[in-house]
């Protein structure tokens, strides 16, 4: 599995320390813990980030927002960038937990 496929199958969430401020072109994300600022330059990316919590995985989030499949790698790369500064976090789901426990 490529890292893109992996992330598509994972459950993610906005980090609890992060606030999103709407901007005319997208949003500004601010992390109260590490005080990092990030700009989301597309409305659809903002919808994806906001939608993460309500969907079982990244793939279904992208589908619900209507991101064309050809663009998924770009969106996943953007999400990975956000993950690197803790703007979004992996969400522990029952399924993910049982997979982890099974592996352990």
């Amino acid at each position, binding site marked *: 599995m490529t890292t893109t496929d992996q992330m598509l199958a994972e459950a993610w969430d906005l980090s609890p320390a992060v606030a999103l*401020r*709407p*901007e*005319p*072109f997208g949003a500004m994300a601010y992390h*109260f813990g590490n*005080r990092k600022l990030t700009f989301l*330059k597309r409305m659809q990316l903002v919808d994806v980030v906001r939608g993460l919590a309500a969907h079982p995985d990244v793939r279904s989030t992208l589908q619900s927002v209507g991101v064309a499949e050809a663009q998924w790698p770009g969106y996943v790369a953007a999400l990975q960038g956000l993950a690197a500064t803790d703007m979004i976090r992996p969400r522990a789901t029952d399924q993910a937990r049982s997979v982890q426990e099974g592996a352990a």
Partner: protein
Amino acid sequence: MTILETRPVVARPEGGSLIEQFELGLDAPICLTWELTYACNLECAHCLSSSGRRDPRELSTEQCKAVIDELQRMQVFYVNIGGGEPTIRPDFWELLDYAVSHDVGVKFSTNGVRLNPERARFLASTDYVDVQISLDGATPEVNDYVRGPGSFDTAITALANLQDAGFKDAKISVVCTRQNIGQLDEFKAIADQYGATLRLTRLRPSGRGADVWDELHPLPEQQRELYDWLVANGENVLTGDSFFHLSAFGVADGGSALPGLNLCGAGRVVCLIDPIGDVYACPFAIHDNFLAGNVLADGGFETVWQRSELFTELRSPQTSGACTSCAFFDACRGGCMAAKFFTGLPLDGPDPECVRGFGEDALASGDRVLPPQGKDHSKANPTRNQPVMLTLSRRDDALAVQATKPPVSACAENPLAGFTL
């Protein structure tokens, strides 16, 4: 100071670069400075806000809290608090607490005068507060020359108090001048010694800085020295938007612009709220030409930010005159609006410190008109805190005045005149 009826709608390029988006403005600033008072214990020669005396119209504690409430609503996540000397406001610590507990983080700038061990311990116990100590020389001689006698020791004592209290990562803020560019390594050593981070900023000819800019601003070869130092040490040094006018050096070397905000953010992503609630395009532009409105008189900060005529204009496409055809324009974008304005240069032309020398040429050409002083809150009479630099220049003035006026009597010129021995 006109507020538009409705908020102007600007078409946005979908997926345009961040710089392009910033030029068109944001819903709320990302670099907001709030000067809480014009009062100051010091009289720095180059004070950007011509501070000294408290303005009687200064916002009250309640009015300040209302501003903080509004910043929270607008999701302005942090604010740079300055002055004057903000810590001499009796309600300073109360306002600090109020801001932090309303999701508005604070970085405040101080000369250190109130940072005794007890305050330092309090600060160490808070999250979300950053402290920035001003130091404009790595030795007392260089620092006190512009900031006044004893100010070096005050700053170092404050840094030591913060470190002893366990406060992590204070900032040391240095305005780069002709006198201290040679001390950059020493500044870094001081920062390392106190577990602090160095922050270098550009001297702008704003406020009292206009009077001393000719003597203090770095020489062209020093600009290069500064640039090279930043490239070598920049990773651990903060600069904000200070030196993007030097980015052209990097482009000329085949590299890229300096990291950071490479554009003039005035009125677009940057602004200033002054002690009486006036909103200016930038902390370095306290002048009627850059006054957008007032938080009390014009319906609050959000209204001024989103609907003032001035900010709308600053967010519309600008002409850049001679700079447009410059090969370095993408990196430098014509430099700093305030630096141009206060040296009397046209806003749509090169920066006075343009690395290609066009600014110097323009300054030398002599056909510039200096704008009248902006708002001045300097102390009427100098105190013992007056920096050496000003005592020298004041004496010069006094001599000049005497020379042009005929002496009242022979005695006024020389106490021994008229005596024949």
